[in-house]
């Protein structure tokens, strides 16, 4: 339960280790790295959030619950991106009428598949006394078990009995136990307890006057963070037993989760979000001019990047920054044809591939998934690519174009004298009104001009050789490789990923106190430990701020909205 509480005087900086030990309640004798973490002021934390499940999360959870062969269907209400992440936008959306209608249809289809004859005995765990009669005991047993996963906490007695009663009544109406249970399950699948990820806070006994996430909320936050999935049995048990309220208990779970192959799913989930892969759904390329790019290739392009990331960060435990320089990747035959490199593999098998030393590549910056996503359907866009580089990878906001640009100054792009896009964008680089913003985007995008709108390599445009030189915040480069190096070495690259990882975990923008802490402590840790990603995940997951709840300013006094049902 939340209290309305007030802050004490805000403490600047971070407190001494001695005080820290007292506050963190470390058991004597703990010698793991965790106990030597500098303690953090208890007001480093942020409000709880209520997030709508993303499409990805919904699908993963259904597959986990009911089996991978269940077809989930759709359509899903579009997820919204804020501060660079769908995971953050999720805390600012609700569910529209059309969306709920869709969830209801999906739920009906899902439960019908679940209770199909072959599957149902296994999933149900019991057989009803009579097929055409209610069987509350059997229903209860199933709903309680499933409910715990779906609501990510045990159902309350009322919630459970309501669902058993619903199954009972529905069985009578529909004349069949399984159909009755289906209906009850549908109501859980459309419940806000399932569709929204809730967080609850409670007073923190280790920090009197401050709040922490309750145990189930901790479990939920951890599992969506590390596995992009709802908490599993062991995590729920750890919540139930109170283990998650101990440093040792948290570390045990975190290490278990990081060691599991499921962490690859978590990493994929994170990077799919950060790299805006959801935009592939509505990406279109001109089929006349670029016939190589089709749905399969678009999917493969995303998969290539995600495989590269998982391999580099988790398998090789590489330096995060090297994602922008590494020539190691994975390809299929059609993807190799896109990049115009030779590759033998059986039909669509994935094969490791290393670009030659002098190839003009810059890690994921020159992957098709990056260059094609940020291009027009039939031509490249240095501005869009440069902007993506700034906003997605460096966490730097590029201002909106002014509303009153006088486009008379944009040269006619049909002019045959302007053969390359660099020439056509000359106005961006020379007109005072444009330069301010375009100089922070265009030079980077222009370095990627060897890659056409679908990721194919070219050395000239309309017969004119492509000039790929430029600079990024003072670091000069002459080609894409150089750009990759400049991105790697840019301090914003590492501070950005730290910020994004934390935001992803807590589902909102970090508060000012959290940002300071991330910059002073977590980022320095990251740098000191070779920019290892798994380490970063761990560092965040076991930190105090990750579970700390602080009050959002100002809205406690706002009147509750009129939320009574209107007269119908």
């Amino acid at each position, binding site marked *: 339960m939340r209290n309305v509480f007030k802050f004490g005087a805000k403490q600047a900086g971070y407190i001494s280790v001695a005080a820290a030990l007292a506050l963190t309640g470390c058991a004597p004798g703990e010698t793991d790295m965790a106990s030597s973490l500098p303690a953090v002021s208890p007001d480093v934390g942020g409000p709880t959030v209520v997030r709508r499940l993303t499409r990805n999360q919904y699908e993963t959870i259904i597959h986990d619950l009911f089996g991978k062969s269940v077809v989930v269907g759709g359509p899903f209400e579009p997820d919204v991106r804020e501060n660079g992440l769908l995971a953050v936008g999720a805390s600012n959306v609700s*569910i529209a009428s059309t969306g709920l209608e869709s969830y209801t249809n999906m739920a009906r289809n899902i439960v019908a598949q679940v209770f199909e004859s072959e599957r149902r005995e296994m999933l149900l765990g019991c057989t009803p006394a009579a097929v055409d009669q209610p069987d509350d005991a059997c229903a209860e047993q199933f709903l309680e078990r499933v409910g715990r996963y779906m609501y990510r906490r045990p159902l309350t007695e*009322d919630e459970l009995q309501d669902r058993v009663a619903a199954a009972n009544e529905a069985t009578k109406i529909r004349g069949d136990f399984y159909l009755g249970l289906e209906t009850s399950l549908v109501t859980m699948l459309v419940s806000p307890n399932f569709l929204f990820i*809730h967080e609850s806070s409670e007073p923190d006994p280790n920090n009197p006057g401050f709040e922490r996430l309750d145990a189930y909320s901790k479990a939920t936050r951890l599992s969506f963070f590390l596995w992009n999935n709802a908490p599993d049995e062991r995590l729920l048990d750890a919540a139930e037993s109170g283990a998650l309220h101990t440093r040792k208990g948290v570390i045990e779970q975190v290490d278990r989760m990081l060691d599991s192959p499921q962490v690859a799913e978590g990493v994929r989930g994170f990077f799919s979000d950060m790299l805006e892969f959801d935009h592939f759904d509505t990406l279109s390329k001109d089929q006349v001019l670029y016939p190589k790019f089709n749905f399969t290739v678009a999917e493969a392009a995303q998969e290539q990047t995600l495989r590269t990331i998982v391999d580099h960060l988790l398998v090789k435990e590489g330096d995060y920054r090297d994602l922008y320089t590494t020539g190691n990747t994975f390809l299929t035959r059609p993807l190799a044809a896109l990049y115009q490199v030779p590759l033998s593999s059986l039909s669509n098998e994935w094969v490791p591939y290393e670009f030659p030393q002098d190839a003009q590549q810059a890690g994921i910056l020159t992957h098709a998934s990056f260059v094609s996503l940020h291009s027009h359907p039939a031509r490249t866009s240095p501005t869009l690519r440069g902007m993506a580089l700034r906003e997605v990878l460096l966490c730097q906001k590029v201002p909106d174009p002014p509303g009153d640009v006088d486009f008379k100054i944009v040269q006619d792009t049909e002019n045959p004298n302007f053969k390359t896009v660099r020439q056509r964008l000359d106005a961006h680089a020379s007109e005072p009104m444009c330069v301010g913003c375009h100089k922070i985007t265009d030079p980077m995008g222009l370095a990627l001009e060897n890659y056409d709108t679908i990721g194919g390599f070219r050395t000239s445009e309309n017969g004119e050789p492509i000039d790929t030189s430029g600079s990024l915040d003072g670091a000069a480069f002459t080609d894409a490789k150089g750009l990759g190096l400049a991105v790697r070495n840019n301090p914003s690259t590492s501070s950005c990923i730290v910020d994004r990882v934390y935001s992803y975990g807590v589902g909102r923008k970090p508060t000012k106190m959290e940002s300071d802490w991330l910059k002073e402590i977590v980022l320095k840790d990251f740098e000191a430990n070779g920019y290892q990603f798994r380490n970063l995940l761990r560092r965040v997951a076991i930190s105090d701020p990750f579970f700390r709840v602080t009050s959002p300013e100002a809205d406690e006094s706002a009147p509750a909205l009129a939320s009574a049902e209107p007269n119908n």
Partner: protein
Amino acid sequence: MSVVNRLASRRRVLRGVMNGGAVTVALPFLDCFLNSNGTALAATGKDLPVVFGNWYWGCGLTPGRWEPAMVGKIEGDLPPEIATLEPFRDKLNVYSGMKVYLDGKPPRPHTSGRQACQSGHVIAGDGDGEMESVDSIISGVVGRRTRFRSLEVAGTGNPRDSVSRRSATVLNPSEADPAKLYSRVFGPEFVDPNAANFKPDPRTMAERSALTAVKEERDALMKDLGASDRQRLDEYFTSLRELEGRLDIELSKPAPLEACSVPEQVASFETSEKFYSGVEIDAVIERNKLFSRLLAHAVACDQTRVFNVSFNDSQSSLRKAGDTTTHHILTHEEAIDEEVGYQPRATWFFSPIIEGLATMAQELENIREGDGTLLDRTLMMASSETGFAKFHGTENLPLLSLGRAGGRIKTGIHVQAKGDAVTRVGLTMQQVMGVSTSSWGTGSMQTSKTISEILA
């Protein structure tokens, strides 16, 4: 508490035997529709309801080429960029000269104009949420009794291309695929008003009853939340109420509707082999055709009384296959041809756009109702987000209406309201549709000046 007690203590929603027997739906808001046996809708002597359509496109029109020469009754040839609306000139109104007032807020290209026309409010910056759109305000009044409060479609097949918004946090997503719209509206849950037999679906009955369990969860959920989270959960519960309303309608026998007929099944526009064709103009035209037909039938069968069409996205990413450029890029980069006085390649796109509007009108016109057509009892507001797209102009935004609104408005009129806020149109639309309001819009766009010239 035992199950039996909980059954007894909950409000019972449904009584009755399942297998096709009489069903009494004891919900207050449907009482007035039921006769004493609860088997049929009463009183069909009422006028058929007026329908509102919100038709939207991006990138405006060319100034000087859509405004009729004279003010008042539209005489002579229609101007070139709306010439394809000729078959409907008697049901057409043109509103010219109106603008967006920014009140010092930063103009957002392809956004501010849309916000002004759709919601009367241009956002100031981050943290200032968008406001409810005009169709949502209207459907809040006229959409309560239909199966769908409103239906939204996007010619681009992108669910994000929608202008229909309940609130800052709820954008009604557009239907992307005509086949999916078909199965939503005319699929298994469709209750044909003209069918001889009506049999309530047990599944629907069971669901309607069981959903109260979700409502019961509400209090516990709301207790812990801050104001903004509470508001979002509220919006969920509004959606839940609409879901329940929909189920209730599916459980009740509707009055027969002469003009209602189930349209032909539509094959899925996007198959897994076909790549997202998105904004290629041919694909958009085709999608719009299919959507228009489905919407007209949906309205004729009273499945909804409000619909939203976004022909293209606000920026207009429309393009021709094989062309390296898009409509949007052309609006900015193409020079104005001295001889003709407009941008030929950019302007080319306005033809299929306005033809798309004509298609919608034609589909409504094709459905005869008594002495008139469905278009006669429809009011479509057609709007965009800019005046002259080349400069992201906020002056003289193109605004049209199509349809006679059941006789509530006069048509065939050109209204010129130079310098007035675009909100005058949205305000008038709401008033014609029965929204009880005397003013609309924020800041300098707040207006109470109804366009009385068109009121019947």
